[in-house]
């Protein structure tokens, strides 16, 4: 672990100012559940930490449009158990509660969850080359142990996945990420927040280093009646997803009016394919329809020696998740 200085930001403007000084190589710290681990492993070495836990970004409020605004510093636990989230956006609650452990969720914040880094073993181990950690050194996972790696949107430079559960639900719900930077506020549609690795695997997302996430905005439509978050992993709790599926439907009798489908554990970002969702519109809610959507979203999926299985697993998980959404089984 490197030595670093620390300051606690008074307000949002100060936080953005404090992180901006380039010579500081500063980072925000929120719950610390990811950043501290990475610092202890010498994967990240900020020279300064700006503690943002005292900022007033810790509320959940209705938006004028009829949606919900989740403060960046509300904990994952408080978000998941929030009455409005639980009743109007149960998909999000379930996704959050499928992640990590109660202790971690009590510390982890909504902003931090979006920013958490990959769990690729090689990224975490400074004894091995990794393009994401040290650009240009090579990707150890491509020819190494890649059981937990991506099958969609990979590049020859990186095959890491984004490990979040929460983000898969946020992608399906088409949330917006509100950020504040030195030049003011902007909102980033969730689909544009995380990136694919391409030839810049060191960049996980499109947030600028001097920008602060202030809130996550949920649109009015919450798919409370027909949704499912299905997470498949190597143990029943406290493990990252091998494959996870956020599925949501609006039904008119047996006919699908609207469908959302996002996958976790398969790509460098929560994976969506509008065409796969479009295939479902107007169809009856049957296994055959779901299979078609599964085929479509997995088109172009490419396995590596240890994670080939994810393609078939994802196909089956998508069908199951939609079937669960019909009856809203857990």
């Amino acid at each position, binding site marked *: 672990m490197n030595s670093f200085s620390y300051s606690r930001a008074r307000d949002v403007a100060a936080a953005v100012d404090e992180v901006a000084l380039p010579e500081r190589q500063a980072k925000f710290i929120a719950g610390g559940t990811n950043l501290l681990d990475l610092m202890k492993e010498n994967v990240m070495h900020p020279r300064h930490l700006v503690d943002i836990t005292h900022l007033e970004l810790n509320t959940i409020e209705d938006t004028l449009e009829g949606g919900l605004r989740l403060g960046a510093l509300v904990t994952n636990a408080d978000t998941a158990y929030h009455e409005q989230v639980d009743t109007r956006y149960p998909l999000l609650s379930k996704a959050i509660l499928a992640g990590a452990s109660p202790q971690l969720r009590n510390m982890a914040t909504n902003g931090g969850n979006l920013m958490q880094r990959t769990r690729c*073993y090689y990224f975490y181990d400074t004894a091995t080359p990794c393009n994401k950690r040290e650009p240009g050194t090579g990707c150890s996972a491509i020819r*190494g142990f890649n*059981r937990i790696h991506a099958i969609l949107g990979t590049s020859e430079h990186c095959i890491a996945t984004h490990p979040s559960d929460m983000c898969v639900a946020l992608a399906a719900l088409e949330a917006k990420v509100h950020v504040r930077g030195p030049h003011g506020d902007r909102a980033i549609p969730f689909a544009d927040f995380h990136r694919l690795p391409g030839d810049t695997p060191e960049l996980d997302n499109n947030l600028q280093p001097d920008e602060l996430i202030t809130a996550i905005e949920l649109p009015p439509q919450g798919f409370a009646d027909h949704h499912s978050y299905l997470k498949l992993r*190597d143990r029943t709790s406290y493990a990252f997803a091998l494959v996870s599926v956020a599925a949501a439907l609006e039904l008119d009798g047996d006919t699908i009016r609207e469908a959302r489908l996002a996958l976790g554990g398969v790509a460098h970002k929560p994976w969506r394919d509008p065409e796969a969702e479009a295939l479902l519109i107007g169809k009856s809610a049957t296994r055959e329809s779901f299979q078609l959507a599964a085929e479509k979203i997995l088109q172009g999926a490419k396995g590596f020696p240890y994670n080939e*299985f994810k393609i078939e*697993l994802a196909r*089956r*998980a998508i069908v199951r998740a939609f079937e669960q959404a019909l009856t809203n089984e857990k």
Partner: protein
Amino acid sequence: MATTHYIGQPTSRVDGRAKVTGQAKYAAEFNAPGLLHGVVVSSAIAKGKITHLDANEALQLEGVLQVFSHQNRPDLAWLDLSYKDMTAPGGSPFRPFYDEKILFNQQPVALVVAETFELARYAATLVRVQYESEEPTTSLEANLDDLYTPVSFKLGYQKPKSRGDFKAAFDQATTRIESEYYHGAEHHNPMEMHASTVFYEENGSLTIYDKTQGVLNSQHYVSMVFGLSKKNVRVLSPFVGGAFGSGLRPQYQLFMAVLAALELKRSVKVVLTRQQMFSFGHRPVTMQQVAIGATFDGKLEAIRHAAYSETSTFEDYVENIVNWSGMMYSCPNVEQEYKLVQLDMYTPLDMRSPGAATGVHALECAMDELAYKLNIDPLELRLRNYAEEEPSEEKPFSSKALRECYQQGAERFGWANRNPEPRSTKDGTALIGWGMATGMWDAMQMPTRATATLTSDGKLTVGSATADIGTGTYTIMTQIAAEMLGLPLENVTAQLGDSSLPLAFVEGGSATAASVGTAVTYVCEKIQKKLLKLAQAANNSPFAKAKLKDVTFSEGYLRLRSDATVAVSLTELMQQNSINTLEEKATALPKLLKQSKYARNTHSAVFVEVRVDEALGSILVTRVVSAIAAGRILNPKTARSQILGGVVWGISMALEEDTFMDHTYGRFMNHNLAEYHVAVNADIRDIDVIFVEEQDTIASPIGVKGVGEIGLVGVSAAVANAIFHATGKRVRDLPITLDKLL
């Protein structure tokens, strides 16, 4: 005073309160004024040598005292023998900082010592190490050409033993199965990280708090390697946060903390990181072949069991893997083979039920395969081949209530209702399967000494240099001593984990309760005799003619067995005779001659129910019944905890545990508890433990056989067999992750 009958009672842990209130201190929690902190720098390569090690930048930080490495190691013991701890396998033990050679990945290459832990950890990142790397060889599968037969005198190792003519019998058998099994590497991962805190005393002697399963082993190692008199090395280990075998051998943090303390003449603490917990020994990757030939009605005619496993380039780590196939069932023709490959890794290390966890898994899966081939119920097949006497040595068992385990376990589980057809039971999207297996382990008693001190206020202290690695040793020592002298539990203090106490062996092999329990029994008997003598000395003593067998000790009194109202209080007795303390020492040696005429083992029958999602492959073990025959149970509560822990581990081993090596780097990659999966609460459902008690004073004079490992043996096989029953799919590789069922 309430009854002082404690043996066999479900007494709660006497150290439970201290543990949950944080009063119980572990090796890393001791502090001294001016304590220095050492942080280990681990190698980034698996094979080659250090070409350059530059600690200047680290040393320039104020508060960094020294960086130790092969470059500045003082002269230490020269002979291999000096580095051999009591449980070392054959070969040449690893010597930290010996030279520039790298023998395994994460090998400790430097120790940074500083005034604070934070500073030492930071300085450790500034030590620049350059290597000349060679391609490591770390794959067992890829190097089967280099198999050899080990010659090792590791304690407890028995060479495989064939009998009869396997080949001829197998060829003639009407029903045959041949299968190969594989399991990946596993790491112990006790909750507590390995740590040593060395107090440097003014006279140069050392008081060391070490995480170990045997304080005498650590003391021996330190005195040999550093040329110190044992008088000047005291090792303490009052509490151990789990070890599972990882604390059998002194680990390198002990060497380093002592080295630094002696060189700097200061007290030093070294604590390993979780990542470093993956750097010193594991349950080795093993490939096994099992072939069984049987008659059409299920009588075993021939068994062949071969195991191929891995070791380091410097030691022959061996375990009894194939031997169980010669001991569990009556079968005239048995062929066994056990071979190793030397790889560029640290020497593997005994892990709970070493050998049996591995070997019995393969045998018991093979028995299930045979049962299906023969169309015989798996339990019935085992009963048809029940070994009435131990077949490999042709000796009677000192006791063996396995038949009762089968019967009681099956009844509790409801085995009779099983439809043998695979995939025959469904519930929604889940396939439900039932499987069973047998388990077997050794019953051992080791030479052990104990002391007892009774004071005239009725307080008793018993001590032995054994360990309590969470198993309940403190509690059973207290129970035995309290019952022997008829004192309330609160009046009895058990001492252990201190090298100044009398001899005990490392806590391993499930031998502690039998060994230490017997020594405590003996030493208390000696106190009993002294008390009886005192009672007899009084004028007109009603005890005048009594022998020890004619009296009892209960509720604080010495009483006549024939008339319990004839009694004298122990405290009064001592006070009347103006005696402040009675002290005794006793040695309990196993009766080797008598024992050698018998096979001494524990047994179990394990029944498992699984739910497997038909489409998604996810597996949940919903029900386990484990019926255990392990002699006399001193404390059904702590014993049950041991079995529960074993079953949980068995489930974990069957479904989750796997440390995977990247063979390009020769490095274990999932070296943390987020990615090395052990079972969590949500994985564990109903576990039911049955003890079938056995009367057996051959295994140990107090009838105890030990329960530390038997709970784990066979569980993974029962899980795998249940998965077959559920899905019709035979997965022969552990762990059985969901992808293997897609």
